[in-house]
């Protein structure tokens, strides 16, 4: 039972992809900044601090509508990481559907650690209330 039924006898990837498509459709139709459907970030809700991911749903909504500048202002880190994430996801999806991978990217361990450190530093920096770090808060670059 290989590619005859589309998926390689594993329901989980099919379910995950269906969920991802549904989530993208919802993200495209509804602006998380306006709609109450999307939950707020728990950290922001409880402490008032921004987490490294704050603004990423709104940023993806803007990207789905082609507004790169607005997405960049909401969460620049997400915009930077997105091409890598999309490649990894596409490679995984292609493997589950067709059984072959895209050429693998091998990131040296140093670069993976750097990504982890960058996420933490970005999370701290965007909470600093003074210039230029206030630019990193969600929408900070859109303020006059």
């Amino acid at each position, binding site marked *: 039972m290989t590619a005859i039924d589309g998926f390689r006898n594993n329901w989980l990837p099919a379910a995950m992809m269906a969920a991802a498509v549904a989530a993208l459709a919802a993200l495209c139709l509804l602006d998380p900044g306006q709609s109450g459907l999307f939950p707020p970030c*728990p950290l922001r809700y409880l402490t008032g601090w921004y*987490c490294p991911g704050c603004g990423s749903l709104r940023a993806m909504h803007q990207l789905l509508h082609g507004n790169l500048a607005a997405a960049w202002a909401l969460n620049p880190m997400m915009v930077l990481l997105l091409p890598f994430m999309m490649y990894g996801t596409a490679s995984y999806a292609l493997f589950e559907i067709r059984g072959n991978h895209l050429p693998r990217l091998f*990131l040296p361990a140093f670069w993976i650690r750097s990504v982890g450190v960058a996420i933490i530093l970005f999370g701290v920096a965007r909470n600093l209330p003074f210039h230029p770090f206030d630019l990193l808060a969600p929408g900070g670059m859109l303020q006059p």
Partner: protein
Amino acid sequence: MFCPQCGASNADNAVVCVQCGRSLQPAAPAVPQPGYPAAVPQVYVPNYLVFAILVTVLCCLPAGIPAIVYAAQVNGKLQAGDVAGAQAASKNAKMWCWIALGAGIAVFAIYGLLMTVGILSNMHGGR
């Protein structure tokens, strides 16, 4: 053992991979050559980095960071030729990804429950 082609977990005495069908009998066992660590290792061990970044940023930072650290260990050990160590780190990376995802889903479920209770009690009070 893990399949060198697709990374699926197989029984240690398996002849072919349950997922992709590749032969698991070692034709020429990979001998790590001392002094010549492969730049890009021949064996594939999944490091779950995309999953780890996603759950760190969107779900649960405290459980996502260990997932990223283990993802780095997977590639670091592969660079050093330590396949067994990389596979152990891979298992840990996967485990922390699921912990982070579970924690994130739990927080949002609690939030959704509170919202529902709040909406229902508002409707009741407004009547």
